[in-house]
């Protein structure tokens, strides 16, 4: 197990380095420059000076080497557009993205699991058919469209929730009281619900199938033949075994939530890393784009690793071959 874990960690680091390199090259090759004379800056000399100051006039290989050296020293670089260390910009925004992704994850799995189990228990009956169609409908909705709809509905028409932002700037510039914690949660509801709702529809469909698959197994039939109560059969035998697919889905959902957050944060003015990334891409802020790719890929790889470890711990039938790098196989 330990050897597998170490190999897996090494592979994770390699993936992260590859992602960072790819993003670094891609953003440098993209058309557009971090500073150009136009509708803002009118003096070309200012651009030239800024580009020199930030070392952006150097060849891409030199810039990449410098970036790696800085990274090795724990320095994520300096933001050209924000005029501040990238580390500070990330530190300001990453907690908000984690809050959003975390809340969406809870929303996704709580609602999705509940619906999936409910549907499985009433398979092919009216509630299952109705819910099946609803989840399919929600699953096929574009996230940005749903976000705008919820914003208009619950922000403007029925003003139940705040329109954008992470807190009330008048009462709660920082979360320093219980009231402000409640305020933060209140601000979180719409963006997290948007992000979680589409995911929940997918999770529900996934969980329903898993539950029905397990229901066909011999051990469930045996449990029923033994005369165990239905509740115990569902919770102890059926659900527990169906949770393996849930863990797999957890690993797959995390990247989806992070990429979804990019759009949701922009629409709901949520001050997270997604919005930071969008702004940085538009402004060709190379250091920030690369750093957010680094953080996001680390999160995704970590999420995937956690899912694999959970899978191994949850299912004793799963064994790890000592020579396997990333594979886990069932016994």
């Amino acid at each position: 197990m330990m050897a597998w874990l170490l190999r897996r960690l090494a592979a994770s680091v390699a993936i992260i380095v590859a992602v960072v390199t790819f993003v670094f090259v891609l953003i440098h090759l993209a058309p557009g420059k971090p500073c150009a004379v136009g509708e803002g800056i009118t003096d070309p000399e200012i651009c030239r000076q800024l580009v020199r100051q930030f070392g952006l006039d150097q060849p891409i290989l030199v810039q990449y080497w410098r970036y790696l050296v800085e990274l090795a020293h724990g320095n994520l670089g300096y933001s050209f557009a924000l005029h501040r260390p990238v580390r500070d910009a990330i530190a300001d925004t990453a907690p908000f993205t984690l809050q959003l992704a975390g809340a969406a994850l809870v929303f996704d799995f709580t609602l999705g699991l509940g619906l999936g189990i409910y549907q499985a228990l009433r398979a092919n009956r009216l509630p299952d058919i109705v819910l099946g169609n609803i989840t399919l409908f929600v699953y096929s909705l574009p996230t940005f469209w749903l976000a705008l709809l919820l914003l208009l509905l619950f922000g403007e028409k029925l003003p139940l929730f705040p329109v954008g932002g992470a807190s009330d700037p008048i009462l709660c510039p920082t979360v320093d009281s219980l009231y402000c914690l409640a305020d933060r949660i209140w601000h979180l509801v719409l963006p997290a619900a948007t992000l979680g709702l589409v995911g929940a529809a997918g999770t529900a469909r996934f969980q329903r199938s898993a539950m029905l698959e397990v229901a066909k197994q011999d051990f469930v039939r045996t449990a029923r033949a033994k005369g165990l109560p239905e509740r115990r059969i569902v919770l102890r035998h059926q659900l527990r075994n169906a949770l393996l697919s849930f863990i797999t889905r957890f690993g797959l959902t995390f990247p989806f939530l992070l990429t979804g957050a990019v759009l949701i944060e922009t629409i709901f003015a949520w001050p997270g890393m997604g919005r930071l990334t969008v702004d940085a891409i538009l402004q060709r802020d190379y250091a920030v784009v690369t750093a957010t790719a680094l953080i996001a890929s680390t999160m995704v790889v970590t999420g995937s690793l956690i899912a694999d470890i959970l899978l191994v711990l949850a299912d004793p039938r799963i064994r790890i071959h000592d020579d396997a790098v990333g594979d886990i196989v069932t016994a």
Partner: protein
Amino acid sequence: MPRRYELLSILLAVAALGACERRQLCQAPDCGTLVDAAIGEPRTLLPTSAEETTAQDIDEQLFLKLADVGPSMNTVGDEDFQPLLAEKWEWDGPLTLVFHVDPRARWHDGQKVSAVDVAFTFDAYTDSAVASPFRAQLKRIASVTVRDSLTAVFRFRERYQEMFYDAVYHMRVLPAHLLRSVPRDQWKTAPFGRQPIGDGPYRFVSWQARQAIELRSDTTFFLGRPGIRRLIWRFTPDMGVAITQLIADQVDVREQILPPEAIERVRTAPQVKLYPYRGTVYTYLGFNLRANGDTTKPHPIFGDREVRRALTMAVDRASLVKSTLGDIGKVPPGPMSSLLWIWDPEVRQLPSDTVQAVRILNARGWRDHDGDGVRDRDGQPLAFRIMVPSTSMLRRQYAQLLQERFRLIGVHVEIDVVDGSVMQERTTSGKYDAAMLSRQNNPSPGTGIAQSWTRAGIGGSNVTRYDNPEFDRLVDRAISAMSRDQAKQYWRAAIETINADAPGIFLYALDNVAGIHQRVDNVQIRPDSWAALLRTWRIPPDRQIDRDRVEP
């Protein structure tokens, strides 16, 4: 009750109590909180580097200029200017201007504001290491020296009509005692820019990254206590969200509402009052006069003045403005926004005349020889691409309308929607045919027009590479003229010259409409800077709402 339900009940009760906790209520005479929905966050609040509109709006409250333009927006001479940090000034000869700093002025850390700060400020703004975007506007000032602790002396290189404007408009006085020790090449990233100490009507309180900046009124401000106690700029990345926040009564001010349909949406919000005011931006279809990607050769289509004139005549600008912008747009009489005092609808412009446009194109050899609906000459079709920024729906809409107008006279147009940085790179390097461009004016016609349309601006803002020595001469004369009437005559001649040359089609000048909560009283908006007179706004006690009385 099962134990777990007991625990849940306790948690819910605590949360409910927390939600109901009482805050202290403001009892002061200036109670009031004004929340602005700002698009985008400043990079820094250090005035030398404050390029974004939001940064400049906030700096209006934190740092004073020596004097500022008055409601007339007249930038000629000094009679229409209003004193701020300088209590008075006098001319000591034709090239020397003496300012007397108001002895009551204090930095927010308690230090006195002095003439040393004024001289230090000029030195910083003009230092290449600081790379201030305002540096170019100060090139005609030779020096600023200190005569005594409250007297600063400006010496100019030459005599011209906007000497006073240049001396006061571009610089906000900085605290020398706080910035002297900061290396100049590090000013853009200096911590001072995120925790500034100024001398204006408001003090800096906090900056929550990507969320909000809060200011608090300086009750000891020497020009009078500001009318509203708290100002909050709440950052929003999107105009649509900002407008929804205004309608949902979650912010008090949105200084510019766009597009025109949004104005109708805001009109439905009973608590919001609309305030129209003159705009600072004009938009045009700029023709690249040099070949796409090779600035040494003329453009095969736009290098021909007659063809540019024909294309301009093919567009009915008035009807486009009416159909897309309604009351909030005007057809500019040249390359200018309605902010400028030289705005004159009587200036000679090319008429909208499709028949004449077709005649010109025929005469220049552009005919539809192969019957495919597109004119051609020597086998080359009369076709070009218009570049549009992805961020502007309005400009995209206009490009589509122009595409249709040109199609009617046998000109084929394709539209490239690109993001802002790509557009800036391509226009600067000359890799484009035509582009939907916008330019923002400050109150002086000299600055913007010279930068965007004279030879001096080529390589910079003059992305069409328009180069007419006669136009440059007229602009120089207009800038150097010593009377407003004389300047106006030269400006008129210059604008008529550029209109006749048609390096672009000057499509629309937007007027601004601000949405402001109706409880706010004494709202005065200066067109060049909506926040310049914010300290005079008031919220009368009988109109105050909960958020006005909250003590943070």
